[in-house]
């Protein structure tokens, strides 16, 4: 099915199942430990062996030699496979650094060997016995230094310009020119990367933890240099990804090589420090924002520049993109510059671009609003735009940022907000802050197969993944709505490369794209049923487990017949995303307390108002948003990968050192969804929400801290040492 004209009324609009607060259908499996994650697959008849990875102890250079003799002789060891033996491998399309193979070391903890043994403990002990002789090269690890030699990236749209920014900025009566920094961040998902590889001749079966089944399968085939059709990949349950599992990782390769060498099925999980230094992370940014405004708050000039770094061949963190669309203003420019850094690979983490971009932009808006002397909500309303500011002929498909801000202000109790540093309760300095949320709505082709069996049960198969988001549930809701059955009559199977290729999970495109694919397959199935019954498919109604045409009504089970019926299709997208700007919007409100003596910040209240099209399931959508708000709290207050700039690695490479929020950090969180649909987005009229919930949160917290203390911090995370010098005297 091709979606190229705005959606009209369709069966989804009945909202008997879609849009209902249905608890996740896989919830019981998860709460009872029966949802099997990658490393947990276990067949008592299979003699699994265990692989333990060895990572490079230098950041840049090459391996001169490796002595594995002691490891090979260690108890229980079945095989040792080294990068030198394997040699240089072809690289997958989505990887920047090589995952394994060859002499060259491109970053710290790049995989250089896997030791396979009878037990996990034996493999780990033997891995510690490998001696490596390196020739170390000098690397570049400090963005502040490397930004001097940063260049314009060769791909994407690094620069944009409309009007005369310099002239308008110079002429503006109120101006802001500030720099902001965001640190490297780790996905830090609960489940580390893990794979089990089983060879049967030249066929490989891999259980793994992947957000994108088909990308992994293709890149695994490329890297192993085998036919894609010979790989069967399964990833039915995923313990979080946040972008860290979008692309093939070393665990899959090491399991495959280890299994081949040991001639046994092999399990490999990346140890926690490897999640930080072996895989990808969100790159740090240095951002400069200039805004010129009239005395009434109208923006006349806006510029956003960003510097980030990556390994050679990598890309920039696209931190300026939202600034091209979020606020009006006739004179504007953005620019991204990319430095070479020899740190582990920088890549997508939840809301890449917008998350760090809004961390800076939404502080800048708070600052310019204060300079103009108007409320920051009013400032944002004054500068709202219903068209793409760079191409005014291009309208937003649906944009209700103003509605989010107004409703949020009323619910949060924004009026009566004091001057910075004016409110105190005991030892606590109290402040509130607001920020806009913005994230583009992306769509990707997505396929599904839907079966109807002789019992009237509907089964959906797609290689879509559920990374904890609720994909199983919204897909079941979609199929139930389309086929006119209750949700208990729907089974959903995900994350298997034998199923039709879907959008996968990432970029908040998963929910809308994948359910649209299921919609398309259900349309096919409905047509098949109508055709079989000799009904005109246009006028057939599917409801209450029956198919009805005029005054004839037949149970679905009967219609399916003994052999059942199947519908399969892929949703493809026309140019509605080009003719219209499709984005999601929101507003974050935060109240913080800052300890007047120590500078510790503790969040007291959080509210998010989201405008993201139709909400397919308010329960799972809310989970997405509160999880994202929590991630934003970490970004604001504690999350930072600390770089050892001498040795080129992230030092705090575990969950004790890299501080994501704990329960005690998170207060009451309220989420409100605007009641809206976006017919330009898909037949579902939905958009993504999982990343929107993160966008702007950290800036709202930063702005609240400023309101509490009068100290403006522009460098994340906002730890107490950055506040302590500016706090008022205690007594």
């Amino acid at each position, binding site marked *: 099915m091709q979606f190229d004209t705005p959606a009209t009324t369709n069966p989804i609009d009945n909202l008997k199942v879609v849009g209902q607060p249905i608890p996740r259908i896989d919830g019981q499996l998860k709460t009872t430990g029966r949802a099997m994650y990658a490393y947990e697959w276990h067949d008592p008849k299979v003699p699994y062996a265990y692989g333990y990875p060895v990572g490079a102890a230098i950041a840049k250079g090459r391996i001169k030699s490796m002595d594995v003799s002691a490891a090979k002789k260690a108890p229980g060891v079945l095989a040792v496979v080294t990068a030198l033996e394997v040699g240089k491998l072809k690289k997958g399309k989505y990887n920047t650094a090589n995952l394994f193979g060859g002499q060259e070391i491109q970053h710290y903890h790049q995989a250089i060997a896997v030791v396979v043994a009878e037990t996990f403990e034996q493999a*780990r002990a033997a891995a*510690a016995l490998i001696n490596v002789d390196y020739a170390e090269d000098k690397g570049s690890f400090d963005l502040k230094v490397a930004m001097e030699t940063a260049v314009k990236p060769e791909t994407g749209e690094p620069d944009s310009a409309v009007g005369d920014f310099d002239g308008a900025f110079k002429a503006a009566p109120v101006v802001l020119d500030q720099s902001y920094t965001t640190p490297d961040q780790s996905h830090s998902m609960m489940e580390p990367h893990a794979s089990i590889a089983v060879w049967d001749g030249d066929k490989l079966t891999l259980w793994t933890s992947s957000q994108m089944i088909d990308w992994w399968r293709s890149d695994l085939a490329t890297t192993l240099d085998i036919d894609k059709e010979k790989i069967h990949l399964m990833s039915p349950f995923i313990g979080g990804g946040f972008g860290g599992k979008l692309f093939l990782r070393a665990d899959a390769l090491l399991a495959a090589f280890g299994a081949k060498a040991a001639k046994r099925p092999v399990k490999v999980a990346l140890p926690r420090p490897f999640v930080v230094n072996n895989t990808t992370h969100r790159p740090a940014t240095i951002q400069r924002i200039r805004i010129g405004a009239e005395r009434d708050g109208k923006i006349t000039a806006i510029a956003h520049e960003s510097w980030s770094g990556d390994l050679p061949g990598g890309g920039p963190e696209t931190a300026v993109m939202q600034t091209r669309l979020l606020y009006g203003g006739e004179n504007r420019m953005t620019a991204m510059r990319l430095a070479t850094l020899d740190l582990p690979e920088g890549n997508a983490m939840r809301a890449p671009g917008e998350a760090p971009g809004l961390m800076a932009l939404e502080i800048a808006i708070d600052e310019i609003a204060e300079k103009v002397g108007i409320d920051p909500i009013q400032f944002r309303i004054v500068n709202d735009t219903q068209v793409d500011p760079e191409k005014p002929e291009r309208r937003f498909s649906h944009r209700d940022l103003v509605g989010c801000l107004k409703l949020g202000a009323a619910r949060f109790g924004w009026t009566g907000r004091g001057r910075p540093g004016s409110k105190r309760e005991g030892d606590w300095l109290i402040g509130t802050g607001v920020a806009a949320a913005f994230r583009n709505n992306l769509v990707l082709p997505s396929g599904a197969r839907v079966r109807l069996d002789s019992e009237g049960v509907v089964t959906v198969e797609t290689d879509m993944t559920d990374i904890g988001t609720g994909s199983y549930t919204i897909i079941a809701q979609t199929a139930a709505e389309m086929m006119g059955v209750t949700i208990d009559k729907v089974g959903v199977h995900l994350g298997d490369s034998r199923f039709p290729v879907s959008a996968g999970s990432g970029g908040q495109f998963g929910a809308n794209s994948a359910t649209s694919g299921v919609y398309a397959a259900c349309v096919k199935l409905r047509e098949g049923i109508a055709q079989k019954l000799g009904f005109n498919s246009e006028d057939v109604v599917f409801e209450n487990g029956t198919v009805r045409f005029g005054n004839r009504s037949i149970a679905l089970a009967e219609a399916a017949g003994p052999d059942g019926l199947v519908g399969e299709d892929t949703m493809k997208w026309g140019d509605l995303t080009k003719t219209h700007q499709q984005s999601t919007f929101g507003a974050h409100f935060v109240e913080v307390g800052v300890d007047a003596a120590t500078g*510790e910040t503790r969040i007291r209240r959080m509210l998010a108002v989201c405008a993201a099209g139709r909400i397919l399931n308010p329960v799972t959508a809310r989970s997405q948003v509160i999880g994202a708000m929590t991630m934003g709290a970490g970004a604001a207050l504690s999350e930072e990968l600390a*770089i050892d700039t001498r040795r080129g690695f992230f030092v705090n*490479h575990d969950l004790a050192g890299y*501080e994501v929020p704990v329960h005690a950090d998170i207060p009451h969180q309220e989420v409100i969804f605007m009641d809206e649909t976006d017919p330009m987005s898909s037949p579902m009229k939905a958009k993504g929400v999982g990343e929107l919930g993160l966008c702007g949160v950290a800036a709202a917290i930063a702005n609240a801290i400023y309101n509490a203390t009068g100290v403006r911090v522009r460098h994340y995370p906002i730890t*107490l040492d950055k506040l302590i010098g500016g706090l008022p005297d205690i007594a």
Partner: protein
Amino acid sequence: MNPFDYLQADNASNAVKLASAAAAGKYLGGGTNLVDLMRETVERPDTLVDVTDLSRRIEARPDGSVMIGAAVKNTALAADRTVRRNFPLLSRAILAGASGQIRNMATVGGNILQRTRCTYFYDEASRCNKRDPGRGCDAIDGFNRYHAILGASPSCVATHPSDMCVALAALDAIVHLEGPEGVRMLKLVDLHRLPGGRPDIETELRPHELITDVELPALSFAARSTYRKVRDRASYAFALVSVAAALDLGDDGNVKDVRVALGGVAHKPWRALKMEAALRGRAATEVNFRAAAEGELSDAAGLRDNAFNRTRQADDRCRPR
């Protein structure tokens, strides 16, 4: 992790005998730190003697002192009624540490003997004088946000991570030991060492000496005490700085007696004797507290990432509430 023998001891003498008989024997309490270190091959014992079956008694004695068995779980000690009533700083210190799950496993003896959480100490690829004496220290010029500002040396800037020990230091706790040469006692403040040139030697314990009990001497004014831990996140984080303090105020509003100990600032729980001396007999005012804290920190030396500690450290929550 290297292969090792696992043995259980039902009394202290037996434990000492079993550990002494091994080439590289170690006592195992809750395992919340030792097992991590074994996984990273930082610790490589050939024998573990499980001492969690030793005394789990908390005995409140008529003279106001309390005797605590070394195998008492952290959770049990924090929840003990006598401790909560008479030594609230100890209960609060324990509850400020780690997580509920870890406190359920960790023992009093093990908590005292836990090793630093300096990331370079855990990382085999880094230089560390604790792990490899003489090899150098990557923390001094590296990532050192959680490192020492007091009593450090050019060899080591690591801190002792325990919260419980900070309270014990303030309380003048006495550690009871049993070793191959018999039993003896040490004050907790004398148990841990400053790093000097041998940061790998962390305590004054003799080979195979085992902590059997911890004694809290009676201290009437400990009922007016607290523990304040400063950290980036609200739970499950080591202290940037922490303070255990107890205050005895006279009717004239002057400080009759005071105990202060600091955590997260040194290689050992730091008893702030200078500060205590500066406060005794003085009016309990914010100004005096601040001056006393600044005096205690007159020798403090900051590193790249932790110099902020000095600015407002230990700005004390020991004012009466």
